[in-house]
Every structure is written in structure tokens, then in C-alpha cells.
């Protein structure tokens, strides 16, 4: 698989390590009333679709950035690559808007 890094261009997926479901960006608030349940779900219950999946990859043997890769789990085709930082900021902005 080739991951088209937003800053570095196409890189072999072997340079990266895989973490999983990009939902892991959205850490629950530690003082929330249901923190125990929320952290349980956050840590253990992941999206696992057959089809498009948004997932976290770490460029360990590269610039050590975290990426959000959109990949089809039935074909391994990668359709979108974003910096995780940008995704996290956009998520937070969306939260503030609500």
C-alpha cells in the first residue's frame, strides 16, 4: 500500500505503524459524569466496517506525524490522507459551533 502523505508525497505503508479507528482522536472528557463508560467505549469499541474506514497511521520511520487515512477495507484502496492535527482541529471547531 502507498500512503500519499500530505507533506511528503507518496510513501510506502511499511514506513508507518497502524493504530486504528480515527475515532480515537476524540478522547472523552475525563471529568464527565459517565467518564468510566465513555472511556470504556472509547478504548474498546471501534468502528470496523467493510468498506470506507477512517484510521490513524503514524509515520514512524518518516516525519513522525499522525495521519488520518481513509481506506477501503475490502480493496485496500486509499482515497484520502489528512494530517491528524487538521482533523482534530476541525473536530474541535465543530464541537465549539454546536
Amino acid at each position, binding site marked *: 500500500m502507498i500512503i500519499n502523505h500530505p507533506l511528503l508525497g507518496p510513501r510506502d505503508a511499511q514506513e508507518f505503524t*497502524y493504530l486504528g479507528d480515527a475515532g480515537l482522536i476524540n478522547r472523552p472528557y475525563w471529568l464527565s459524569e459517565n467518564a468510566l463508560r465513555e472511556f470504556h467505549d472509547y478504548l*474498546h469499541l*471501534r468502528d470496523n466496517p467493510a468498506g470506507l474506514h477512517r484510521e490513524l497511521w503514524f509515520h514512524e520511520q518518516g516525519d513522525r506525524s499522525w495521519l488520518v487515512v481513509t481506506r477501503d477495507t475490502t480493496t485496500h484502496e486509499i482515497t484520502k490522507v489528512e494530517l491528524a492535527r487538521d482533523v482534530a482541529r476541525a473536530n474541535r471547531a465543530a464541537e465549539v459551533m454546536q
Partner: protein
Amino acid sequence: MRYSALRLIKESLTGHKGWGPQWRDPDPKEAYDYVIIGGGGHGLATAYYLAKEFQGARIAVLEKGWIGGGNVGRNTTIIRSNYLLDGNEPFYEFSLKLWEGLEQDLNYNAMVSQRGILNLVHTDAQRDAARRRGNAMILNGSDAELLDTDGVRAMYPFLNFDNARFPIKGGLLHRRGGTVRHDAVAWGYARGADQRGVDIIQNCEVTGFRIENGKVLGVETSRGFIGAKKVGVSVAGSSSRVMAMAGMRLPIESHVLQAFVSEGLKPFIPGVITYGAGHFYCSQSDKGGLVFGGDIDGYNSYAQRGNLPVVEDVIESGMSLIPGLGRARLLRSWGGIMDMSMDGSPFIDKTHIEGLYFNGGWCYGGFKATPAAGFCFAHLLKTDRPHETAKAYRLDRFMTGHMIDEKGQGAQPNLH
């Protein structure tokens, strides 16, 4: 029809015309007491033990493709009872005991071969870990022997003992472990279940559940609605997809694991060998092919095929352990989709929906579990209580803090 030597002689004298199909091909009925989703090893074993041991009646197994087309027909056929933790080892020991009596029980030649499994160690720390594991195994009624370098050399003289980086310091030998003909397991259970009245319905994909007031009433399928008092889900790599139809999210990711087989060679590996310094394990099939594999690819996948980096890693590891491997030609490689759980251990449990039960999360080790998983799932379906050896396999164990993490890796499925 019972199989026997006498029967074989009779058939060979009469042109093999009297064999007949091993199971029926029935149309689905309107309703059953028990519907098992998934005609892999686990689903078929569940139906078999439900009918045989627990007097279950009106049972159907629904399979979206053909039985044996999933992981039960794609694995590297290793069976063993060499786990460390209390939640696991009694279960796998129970499974190995069932394997030991399986062929007589099923009247079916599944080629159960207890040819021994040797886990190699390369450092002092690994030897300590092997000794500890061996003791845990023996405490749970399994068998284990710690070999030194000479002991390993006597068994497998062709291994690379003088590897400067990873010298072979010995190994943990589990003599009762071995291999089984995987397809025959599916077929044997299917035949046994069919003989006890179970309807095995192929080309029947479950597309939804009918659930009212928190109670399951049956399943929607590509062959219409089928009513059921109890539904047991046993779909291996498809667990998340199927349970999502009941609105559940599981502590599971689906990953691809590859396997390889070489051309047929004269017998030279009598047992199963696992490398302690790289991702590689190997055995030799009765046809002579070297059957080997390594690590999972490491990312979510439903593609049933892997990528080249893992191929390279497995072959490199293999070459560093068995240099002679480089002389053999590779015939085939393939991949299967496994349900990797958050602690690397499985689930056999009720769900919060009445009448809906789940068996899954077997990772890359569910083949050896087939008999006991079937038995324990049948026990749960019939009695609503977990079997003695499977009571740790709860869906809520991450909430209660009772994870069964053999490797101590935490909630990271691609590291288990």
C-alpha cells in the same frame, strides 16, 4: 451411513456407487428453536453438540456461502493447549481432549495428528517464560517439556543453530499438540449434525435481525424470514458486521492473516515448529507441502488477501530459521479475515438482547478451539449459563477489568 473398513472394502468391490451425500440440502423451514449463523467450524460444532449433548431440537445452521469456505478452510490447522492464563488454559485443554476423541465420536477421519509443537527459545528471558508457561500448562492438565539445544538438535538437526544473533537455546515441547485436516473438521461436524436432524442451509445470508421489545424473534435472510427462539452468531471475521445489524458495537477489529504452502517435499519436518525470534511457524502436510505463516498484516481488512511486506517478513524469518527453505518453491499463498479482539481472547456470551448469543473474537487461534467453542456455545444456548471452562469469555470484561491478555499488549488488536 457409518464409515468403516468393511464398508470401504465393499464399496471398492462395487465401484464406489453406494456412498451418497454426507448431508442433506434442505430448504429453510419457517421457524426453528435454534438458529446458528455461520457454517464454519464453530457454527457446525455448535449445532452438532447442541443436538447430541444437549438434546436441542429443531436446529438450523445458516451459511451465506458454502460450509467450510471461511477460515475453517483457510487456516494452518494447528491445534494445541499451551496457553498461560487461567481464563484460557482450562478451555484449550478441554478442546484438545475433545480433539483426541473426535474421530471416534464423529465416525469421520479428520486426520487428527498429535505430532508435537516445539516453541523455540533464543534467550535466557525466553527460556524463563517458556518454563513458566510449561508449568502453567502442566497445572491445568496439559503436557510440556523443556528441551535444551541438544534436545532440539536431536529432533530438528537442519535448523540454523549457529545464527549469531538468534542462537537456538532450546524449546518448549508440547507433544499432544499437532495438526488436523481442517476441511474434514467442517465436513465431519456437518455430517454428524445432519444425522441428528440439523438443517444445514447454505447460500443463505443473514441480512438482519427481527428484534421486538428487546427480544429476538428471528432473522431476515436472502432466503426469507426465518423465525427462531434463540439465535447464536458464530461468523468469525464478520462478527462486527453481523452484530452491527443488531445495533451492537464489539471490542473487535477484522484483520487479515496470510498463509503459505510450498511444493510437495519428502517428509523432513515431523512436527510443528515456531520461531521465537521472528514471525514464522511451519509444519509439513501429509502431502509433503510445507505449511507456514507469520504475523497478521496489521490493519483492518475484509479483503481476504494480504500485502507483500508480510510475505517478505515471513519468508525472511523462515530463511533465518530453516536455511533449506530457500530451495523449496512456493505454491500458494492466501489470506483469511479474523476477528481480532481487544485483549486477544475470545467471547462466548449472551448479549443484552434476549435470545441473541455471540461466539467470536477468536483471532488467529480459533481452529484449535473448534470442538470446545462448539460445546461451550451449545451449553450456553441450551442452559443460559456459561460452561465451566468458558466463563471468562464475557463481553463486558473490559468494563469489569477482567481482560485475558496473554501477551500483555493492551487494547491494540494488531499486537495480539
